[in-house]
């Protein structure tokens, strides 16, 4: 029942080894390709894979397009709302606040990463570092939490499965049918044959990603220059390269198992077991076990700690001292006589106190999440699926680190807003019992929130994802070479 049971028959020729090798490679490639074209099972697997891939890509492209337009419309409406809120006290404007929305890069359509499970917008208001809200997952339909259809699922989980279907009989079929002696006798280098067959397998796997590539090109074309990435080109290149290495690792593993196994059934059993462990068990076990690396507090404990620490806006005694200093500095007796607005100064103090409290609490939380990221990445040395998952979501800016990057940028914007509004308030005391009111000029003086994900940290990416991925490929190639050596000189059984 294997999809590939060809026997390549090449006659040993008195040519230089490179030429023999090249000819063997080309001959094996053509023979394999020809045979696969005729095999209905290959057509079935490819048709199913392409249909799924096309659905995944279409859905991803539509989702991204919809989310981007909704966020762009909402961001522009917020910007207009902020500018046209009318005359009011700057502190009222600070409480009115603005919502900011997380931008989505095009690559996030290919690998949505954590996007479905994190909030999409955050309200920037006075005194509070709000959490991001409205997770798309909260509007999800039902019980299925595993294997949400996306191009990343296709490439990380289903493409290797399709490769196993198409390639497990690569050499095992010849051994099982007693054609191994003939393969040895024909003089063609086994390495060339294995490379050719592996390359055909890789081409078939990549054909499954065609719909995703087309969809991404269309989304990119529609998006124009809206990409929120500083280094979109580099990320796209690394993204494609990463998946090439990942699928090549699987091609090498399949070659190794097929050359090593005594029968096709054994080859299939080895590969299905490896696939189950590497793509299903380890990625989930890694994220579960990472909890132990840096335990997270419960939301209740986290919020209680912040509320307790916020307590009073600032130390009342300190506030009194500061007030006394100001009165002395301006030579006046009461706050009302001050040429500055004491309310604004108090708000500045209050915000500084709040910022300090939030930093003290969110800092360790983000550090714990980052520690869990590092712990998860370690599993990339055991499973190429973990490594490519980390690489792909990092490059697509749909990972936890990118999310935190956005959260921190939004918080910086909130603080900037508060600083500008409170400074303006501090500079304008109330006159004759009438509260100071600012207008559109002040609202417009606050720079709009424009967020771009920072350029990729090459060293970190290399250590966490690229090296484990490359090590996986080297290991798989090593296994394939050892298995081919055994195929060449071991027992024909």
């Amino acid at each position, binding site marked *: 029942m294997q999809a590939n049971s060809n026997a390549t028959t090449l006659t040993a020729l008195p040519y230089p080894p490179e030429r023999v090798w090249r000819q063997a490679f080309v001959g094996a490639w053509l023979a394999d390709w020809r045979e696969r074209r005729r095999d209905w099972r290959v057509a079935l697997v490819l048709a199913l894979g392409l249909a799924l891939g096309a659905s995944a890509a279409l859905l991803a492209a539509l989702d991204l397009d919809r989310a981007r337009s909704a966020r762009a419309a909402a961001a522009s409406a917020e910007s207009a709302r902020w500018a046209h809120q009318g005359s009011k006290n700057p502190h009222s404007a600070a409480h009115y606040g603005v919502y900011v929305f997380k931008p989505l890069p095009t690559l996030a359509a290919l690998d949505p*990463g954590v996007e479905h499970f994190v909030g999409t917008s955050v309200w920037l208001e006075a005194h509070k570092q709000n959490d991001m809200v409205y997770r798309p997952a909260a509007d999800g339909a039902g019980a299925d939490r595993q294997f949400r259809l996306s191009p990343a699922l296709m490439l990380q989980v289903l493409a290797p*499965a399709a490769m196993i279907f198409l390639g497990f009989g690569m050499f095992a079929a010849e051994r099982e049918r007693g054609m191994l002696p003939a393969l040895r006798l024909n003089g063609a280098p086994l390495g060339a044959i294995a490379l050719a067959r592996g390359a055909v397998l890789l081409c078939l796997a990549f054909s499954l990603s065609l719909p995703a590539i087309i969809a991404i090109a269309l989304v990119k074309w529609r998006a124009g220059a809206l990409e929120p990435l500083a280094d979109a080109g580099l990320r796209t290149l690394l993204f494609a390269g990463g998946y090439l290495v990942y699928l090549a690792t699987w091609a090498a593993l399949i070659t190794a198992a097929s050359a090593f196994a005594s029968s096709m059934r054994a080859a299939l059993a080895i590969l299905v077991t490896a696939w189950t462990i590497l793509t299903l068990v380890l990625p989930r076990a890694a994220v579960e076990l990472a909890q132990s690396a840096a335990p997270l507090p419960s939301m209740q404990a986290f*919020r209680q700690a912040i509320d307790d620490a916020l307590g009073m806006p600032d130390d009342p005694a300190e506030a009194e001292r500061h007030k006394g200093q100001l009165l002395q500095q301006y030579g006046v007796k009461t706050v009302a006589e001050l040429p500055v607005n004491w309310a604004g100064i108090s708000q500045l103090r209050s915000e500084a106190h709040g910022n300090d409290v939030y930093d003290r609490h969110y800092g360790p939380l983000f550090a714990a999440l980052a520690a869990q990221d590092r712990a998860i990445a370690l599993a990339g040395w055991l499973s190429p699926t973990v490594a490519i998952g980390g690489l792909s979501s990092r490059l697509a800016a749909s990972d936890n680190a990118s999310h935190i990057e956005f959260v921190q940028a939004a918080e910086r914007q909130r603080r900037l807003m508060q600083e500008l509004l409170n400074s303006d308030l501090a500079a304008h005391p109330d006159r004759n019992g009438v509260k100071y009111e600012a207008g559109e000029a002040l609202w417009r003086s606050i720079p709009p929130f424009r967020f771009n994900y920072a350029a990729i940290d090459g060293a970190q990416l290399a250590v966490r994802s690229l090296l484990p991925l490359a090590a996986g490929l080297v290991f798989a190639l090593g296994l394939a070479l050892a298995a081919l050596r055994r195929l060449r000189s071991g027992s024909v059984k």
Partner: protein
Amino acid sequence: MMRTLALVSFDLRSLLRERGTLLLLAAALLLAWYGLFEGTRFQRHAQAAQHAAAVQETSARAAAHELAARYFANPDAPEFAALLYYRTPIDVRGYAFREHVGFAALPALPGAALAIGQADIAPGTVRVRAESMESVRTAAEIEHPARLASGRYDLMFFVVYLWPLVLLTLCASVLTQDRESLRLRSLLLQGVGSARIVLVQVGARALLATILLIGAVGGAALAGGALAADGAGLAALGRWAGIVLLYSAFWSAVAAALCACCANRMSAAFAGFGLWLLFAIVVPAAIDAAARVKAPVPPRERYVQSMRDALDQVNANRSASLARFYDSHPEWKPARTAPGEVSSSVSRLHRAQELERIMGGVEREFALAEQARSSLFERLSTVSPVTLANAAFAAAAGTDHARQRQFIAEVARHQTALRDWFQQAIQRAALGDEQAQCARTCLGGYGFRDFDRVPRFVASPALAAAPALPARAWTLLLWAGVFAALALAALALERRRQRG
């Protein structure tokens, strides 16, 4: 009957003699135990958070009582000189909007550790604020998002996704090995029909393995404290075991059909893996995709914008809407203050109600869209045994979407009662303050010490009741019947071909 028993006994003995079978079962049990461990860890964390919330609520109330006793005994004490009304529980405005600590907790069912289900997305403990449901609607537990995105590794994951692979592997050699070794003809000559071989051997292998799994997991759950060793715990284990048996029956029938159709073990293994991929990944993903396309939920960004528009509208119509409010509640109408001049802390709850009223249409639109998606998903899930199993395990553990929705509905009712209670308290306090103003918070005005009378959330008995075995789980038996019939049909065809 004796012949069947002999067949089963011979088959099981030879199967257990294989080292591979034992290794496979050992690996399966280890993976199942690990899933149970993760489920238990999650559940303990959730329970600890729930307990901490209850402690916080109680101690906040006790601290408020203690502060009220000191303050109302001597309001002029120096320690209260810097008291801010909006930051203290002894002022009803400060208590209602900031200092009141009230949580609503979804009671955990005895089998909660057996399936995390939706519990990591929809938290079981939410803080309820008098002003609005916003804190409930956007509540989330702190989790690494990658854990949510990759899908949890728990017992449910093991049983739904990995256990079928174990069953298919265990059963792939039934009949196919006899065909390969040409032993089938001699068996048939002894009068043992191929249908009996397939059904009996597959059934026995799967049943034995499933009983082993249930025993090992059940024993570990009881011993490790994941399930209480009482009636409720055993009933939860019984429900879980029932679903495992139904689900195993489905995959056993699939294995029987494969063994009936395939000429050798390799083909059976190949086709088995293919069917597993189809049922475990492709069909559920397709259902999810269909639900997303056919029943889209409007983007939440639109919800945010509608809320902002509504808030602007409420602010713009403040005076008129407050006038209407006091017309409908003349008992709270201030004697000297015009509606537009009422302080923001007194009109704040009315403002929240107005916002809710204006947002009603949008809320309904989102709720209907979500409901449409859920019901479409539920209808479609009939064609996916894996989705049915997921839903059944989550429902039996009380970690499903429907129970969470019921919980939120109860919280919403409680929040309405809480808001109404505070509305009354604040309006009466405002009237009292208007009649006898005092410079600082005082009783008869905004002073507050009725902490024990503030409504508290109590889950309905329905939420705490153990669920029955979900009715839809029985659909798995129907699926098993379809594949068993397929197996019999394939064998009948084969017989006819051989005779022909």
